[in-house]
């Protein structure tokens, strides 16, 4: 393994490591536009030039592999001069329209100019006029005047999405990012080109003029859009409530996870956050009064729910109660659900699996057919006791009647179709709906309990591979809504079971002690990259 010295700091790295990679490990910043670890090496922006002992010419750090004994400097006058020269070249035709550019604040022209440039403009020529603010697809706007021709987007559509919409046309100073005549950038990964664009050439239509990036708060989370569990950052505007139509969540950005999504997320996930600040959010408990749902406070709602559950149990036994949880819930939510309904109330009929009439499919990249973030967790937590066949009740359209249904975060009308959903719900004397947003199903419930969305809670999801990953609240639960596990705790407390959990973390400690598959896990071990469920021995038959 070669040892390299960069700016007097030495490091031994595996064979094949490039200077730019080694520098990253030493926390030495080497500026770059074209280099992106998820794409092939272009080596063309020439920002990462470094000086290597015994080499007369500066070399690009992105394409130069470390050899043993190599001595590199990124701070010599020669390097500084070259880098500031390259930066000047990039800026001569830049429109400097930062005041109206969404990228401002996270723009690498701005950042590197402050660090490596700070020159006065020597450009006395007319700047080249090019295409501005072209809508090139459902999610992306192109401004070729701001483009530095780093070719990241071109390589992305060639190598990652393999959709081939973007190219660099012409040559020399005429070079320009273009699409085919009459073609649009429309693939399920199109938003990623905005993330990798180091400048304001590709911006997001959804985020356009919504918020300045320096007003954004960021919370590490996991996309709830499918069972891949792509790592994301929930970016919210908490300071400028009047911006962005009053929405709090402004955008989701992918967060690197080598094992899950690397640098990318799909558009379905990226733009799937709108429900969080949607007017349909349930912000207080509601109770059916005639045809209308009327608001009530939490303690009344909890008493009503517990009262109805007790009543159903007294009348028909535990067998007259069905709990339908959701693979949208966190592991912590599901554990408390099991603990309260299953263990403390002795209800066996707990499931989460609702057949979906809408057939969805995997794409050949990240998106999975299962559009739920925690199916694997729900299986581990709810099904380890074995079998209750919810599907049979739904499909057989049995005439059996039940006392009470406690339904979490599942729009049965959408999944089953209106008629089957109504028929199923009709089998119950009383329906409690717990969820974040109003939908046709919640409209059919007798009691509605408002739950927080995944962006508003701490907890964990388990992806399809069994990787347990943490999510962090980026914003407060809206209105009176509560994290699902707190809703259940409230019911439990009302029913006389005081769990005493202060946080999701405390729930998880107990979960790890109780549910076999989670044995040995902790938030610390899970960390920011997640941890796979320990291999569990198959239970002998």
């Amino acid at each position, binding site marked *: 393994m070669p040892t390299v010295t960069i700016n007097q700091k030495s490091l031994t790295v595996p064979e094949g490591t490039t200077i730019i990679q080694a520098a990253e490990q030493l926390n030495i910043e080497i500026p770059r536009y074209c280099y992106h670890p998820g794409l092939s090496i272009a080596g063309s922006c020439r920002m990462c030039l470094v000086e290597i002992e015994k080499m007369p010419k500066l070399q690009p750090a992105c394409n130069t592999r470390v050899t043993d004994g190599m001595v590199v400097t990124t701070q010599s006058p020669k390097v500084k001069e070259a880098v500031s020269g390259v930066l000047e070249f990039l800026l001569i035709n830049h429109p400097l329209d930062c005041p109206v550019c969404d990228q401002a604040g996270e723009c690498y022209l701005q950042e590197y100019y402050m660090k490596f440039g700070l020159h006065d403009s020597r450009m006395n020529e007319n700047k080249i006029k090019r295409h501005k603010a072209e809508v090139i697809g459902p999610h992306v706007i192109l401004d070729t005047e701001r483009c530095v021709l780093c070719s990241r987007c071109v390589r992305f559509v*060639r190598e990652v999405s393999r959709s*081939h*919409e*973007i*190219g*660099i*046309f*012409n*040559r020399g100073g005429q070079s320009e990012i*273009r*699409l*085919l*005549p009459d073609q649009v950038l429309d693939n399920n990964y199109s938003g990623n080109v905005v993330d990798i664009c180091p400048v304001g050439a590709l911006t997001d239509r959804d985020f356009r003029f919504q918020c300045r990036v320096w007003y954004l708060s960021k919370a590490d989370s996991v996309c709830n859009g499918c069972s891949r569990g792509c790592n994301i950052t929930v970016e919210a505007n908490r300071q400028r409530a009047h911006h962005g139509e009053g929405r709090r969540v402004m955008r989701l950005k992918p967060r690197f996870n080598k094992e899950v999504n690397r640098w990318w997320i799909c558009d379905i996930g990226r733009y799937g956050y709108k429900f969080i600040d949607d007017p349909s959010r349930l912000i207080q408990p509601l109770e059916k009064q005639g045809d209308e749902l009327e608001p009530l406070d939490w303690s009344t709602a909890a008493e009503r729910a517990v009262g109805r559950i007790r009543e159903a149990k007294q009348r028909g036994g535990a067998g007259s109660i069905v709990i339908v949880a959701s693979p949208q819930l966190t592991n912590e939510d599901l554990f408390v659900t099991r603990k309260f309904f299953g263990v403390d109330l002795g209800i066996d009929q707990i499931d989460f699996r609702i057949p979906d009439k809408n057939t969805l499919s995997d794409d050949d990249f990240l998106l999975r057919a299962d559009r739920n973030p925690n199916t694997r967790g729900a299986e581990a937590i709810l099904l380890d006791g074995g079998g209750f066949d919810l599907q049979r009740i739904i499909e057989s359209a049995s005439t059996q009647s039940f006392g009470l249904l406690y339904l979490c975060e599942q729009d049965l009308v959408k999944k089953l179709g209106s008629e089957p959903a109504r028929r199923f719900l009709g089998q119950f004397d009383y329906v409690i709906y717990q969820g974040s947003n109003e939908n046709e199903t919640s409209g059919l419930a007798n009691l509605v309990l408002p739950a927080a969305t995944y962006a508003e809670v701490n907890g964990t999801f388990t992806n399809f591979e069994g990787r347990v990953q943490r999510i962090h609240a980026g914003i407060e639960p809206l209105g009176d809504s509560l994290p699902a596990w707190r809703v259940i705790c409230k019911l439990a407390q009302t029913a006389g079971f005081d769990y005493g959990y202060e946080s999701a973390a405390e729930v998880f400690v107990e979960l790890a002690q109780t549910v076999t598959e989670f044995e040995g896990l902790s938030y610390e071990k899970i960390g920011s990259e997640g941890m796979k469920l320990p291999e569990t021995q198959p239970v002998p038959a």
Partner: protein
Amino acid sequence: MISDRLLAEFDSIVRNYPVRRSALIPILLTTQEHLGYLSDESIAAIARYLNLPAIDVYEVVTFYSMLRRHPVGKHHIQVCTNISCLLLGGEEIFERVSKRLGIKEGETTSDGQFSLAEVECLGACCNAPAMQVNYTYYNDLTAEKVDQILQALQKPEER
């Protein structure tokens, strides 16, 4: 569209290479020689023929100066004004052609007979000033010679 005859030519070009894509530029040239220019339809057909994303073909077409997406005149006059020609009056030759035909750089006469382009070094430096009409070189040009050449091209039946 691409004729069967042209397709047969494509087939023979492709056979020269172990990797199909290598045939792209020769195929584009051949197509342009047959059809005058590279239309969006031709480009799409060639991309399909070579199994390439169309964007790759556009990148190539817009990169090379001989490849064109629009028709030119029947006689495409390309006057070199680079250094060796410049020293011996290349610019004056260009002006002469321009004036005689009444067209500027990049333009085509209304009858579609002539188009004019100022081009980079044609590799005829020792016979400067020089120009190409389509692929034919005309060397050691003078104003009189240009007049004669244009006249001859204008009246092909008298040649």
